[in-house]
């Protein structure tokens, strides 16, 4: 991102681009191992789509940690709640979901996703006020409180929806794949990729190019100073937390459609995945989180294809490898 109008007086910080190139290097290295070009393309697209979905879920967690120094162990609950809320819209409106028209499908999907984001964002408001507000600055208690929150949320989902797995079929027009030559690319994966890129770009834009982003970054650096200037940093942080939970909800909807099912324990499973991504990326770093998500998805997809048994623990191995290289993750946030 070179800004032509920027004065050249200040020396720019050295760019650290090696981690950013890792996904590309990994993908190219896998090409000869996989052999067939068409399966490589399919696997790569699958990885990118899965990576984007994981990124959307993880971005909220890393954002909240980076800005507020709060680690939310209950982040998985927002994911699960988002997925369940989407069933409230999608299951009663099944005829529209199964109509063979992209427009009709999207007209149902969009409100479902928005409602999920709204509900999980509102839940974020409650969680921040009730669970996190009393324990700001105390990591130990934050972990305990939010773990308790995760248990309560999961059990509440069981009590409200029952313990069974709820099937959530993909809309008709998003099923199947585009066939280009002998390469098949699933339609839904393209949509997921697109959405992930939009979210990534939006977060970067807001943080780097708007006044709110400026205030947030300033608040992270020196909270007292921003408060002294008359800005309400508490309210700003609350907003960040709600956005983070809302994004988790969106990720939950996308993941549920990807797997075509909803289950209360999905929050648990995804929490682990999201944590691994956040650790790999470096706690608090959005760019690192993006790369981490791509890497985890790639290792899972390529690994699953090449050595199925290894795929089960592939993300742990990836995490260990990355931490050997950089103990604080790919892009360590150095302010603390």
């Amino acid at each position, binding site marked *: 991102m070179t800004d032509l109008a920027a004065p050249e007086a200040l020396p720019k910080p050295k760019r650290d681009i090696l981690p950013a190139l890792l996904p590309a290097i990994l993908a190219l290295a896998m090409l000869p191992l996989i052999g067939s070009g068409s399966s490589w393309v399919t696997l790569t697209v699958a990885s990118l789509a899965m990576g984007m979905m994981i990124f959307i879920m993880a971005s909220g967690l890393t954002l909240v940690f980076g800005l507020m120094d709060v*680690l939310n*162990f209950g982040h998985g609950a927002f994911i699960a709640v988002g997925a369940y809320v989407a069933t409230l819209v999608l299951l009663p409106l099944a005829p529209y979901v199964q109509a063979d028209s992209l427009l009709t499908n999207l007209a149902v999907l969009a409100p479902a996703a928005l409602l999920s984001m709204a509900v999980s964002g509102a839940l974020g408001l409650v969680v921040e006020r009730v*669970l996190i507000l*009393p*324990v700001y600055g105390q*990591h*130990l*208690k934050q*972990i*305990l*409180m939010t*773990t*308790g*929150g*995760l*248990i*309560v949320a*999961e*059990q*509440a989902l*069981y*009590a*409200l929806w029952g*313990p069974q797995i709820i099937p959530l079929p993909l809309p008709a027009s998003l099923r199947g794949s585009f066939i280009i030559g002998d390469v098949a690319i699933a339609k839904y994966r393209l949509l997921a990729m697109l959405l992930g890129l939009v979210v990534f770009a939006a977060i970067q834009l807001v943080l780097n190019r708007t006044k709110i982003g400026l205030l947030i970054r300033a608040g992270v650096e020196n909270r007292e100073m921003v408060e002294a200037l008359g800005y309400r940093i508490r309210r700003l942080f609350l907003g960040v937390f709600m956005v983070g939970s809302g994004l988790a909800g969106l990720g939950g909807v996308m993941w549920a459609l990807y797997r075509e099912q909803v289950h209360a324990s999905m929050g*648990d499973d995804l*929490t*682990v995945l999201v*944590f*691994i991504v*956040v*650790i790999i990326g470096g*706690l608090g770093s959005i760019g690192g989180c993006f790369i981490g998500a791509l890497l985890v998805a790639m290792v899972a997809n390529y690994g699953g294809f090449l050595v199925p*048994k290894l795929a*089960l*623990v592939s*993300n*742990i191995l990836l*995490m*260990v490898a990355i*931490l050997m290289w950089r*103990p*604080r993750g790919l892009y360590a946030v150095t302010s603390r």
Partner: protein
Amino acid sequence: MMILSGDPPRSRLLGILLVVIIAALAVAPFVFPGAKAMNVATKICIFAALVASYDLLLGYTGSVSFAHTMFYGIGSYSIAIALYSMGPNWTAVAAGVVTGLPLAMLLALGIGLFSLRVEAIFFAMITLAVASAFLVLASQLSWLTGGEDGRSFQLPELLRPGTVIIPKDWFGFAINGRVLTYYLIFVACAAMILALLRVVNSPFGRVLQAIRENRFRAEALGFRTVFHLTYANCLAALVAASAGMLNALWLRYAGPDTSLSFSIMLDILLMVVIGGMGTMYGAIIGATIFILAQNYLQALMGAASNAAAEAGLPLLPGLLHPDRWLLWLGLLFIASVYFFPTGVVGRLRNPSRKPS
């Protein structure tokens, strides 16, 4: 006082409670002879030791580990696999012990060196990830672990229920292999708790508390904090693995649900928090309260749920269903972190102090 390492309960009520619990556990096979009561007593013994070892980490060093059940599971599985594959003899028990304990310690060492360098939060996340990978491995490597079904096995002759050691007509009580197993567990757990009490009241334990209070200052004083934290992590792992071995011996079975699942991890967390973090005695109190509640309150919840269903109330039957017991536990957990951060033991020791 020697046996308590100079760290007495420091509260009359707490002392009385502890004496009552320990006395009840000591005579449990004679006073509460039923199968269910015996299981409850054994579980209290094992969990008291397991929770005490977790308190060494959570209460004394302030680092949250989510991998404690992994070590517990390593202990359970090492005994189970050894007895399953080598037959019911004492060599197999010894083989399980000498493979399980070093394995647990090496893993703890690895995790510690990896993650304790950075931050407490890092440690929590990495242990969660490693523990979940271990759970996946344990349920996938069925040739070794028996997969989801776990491994059932036979005990050595001496510990079997059928083995009569002292017949009933001597004192009016039959002492069989089952009773012997119980006392083996009781004594081993008591020894582990006393050893942990010794550890936390040693100079090493003081360093751990110094790290908990202010890691930077401890480092500045010249203590290598990573070394101390990793050492504590290894010790806790060893005790947890031993508790897992005792658990496997009692159940004659090891499986993902009984020794590895995430819900056991939550139970341990809850017991530490309810009992009181950083007190050791809290482990005994917490385990006793929790396990008694788990075994006897769930029936009560079922009755309440049925009553609510008959009264035609909406939602309430679902919320009170015995399977939703964790919901109420979670709420209790949050409330106790918030209102009673020092737990039962802290409250008994300083009844007047307001929660911070």
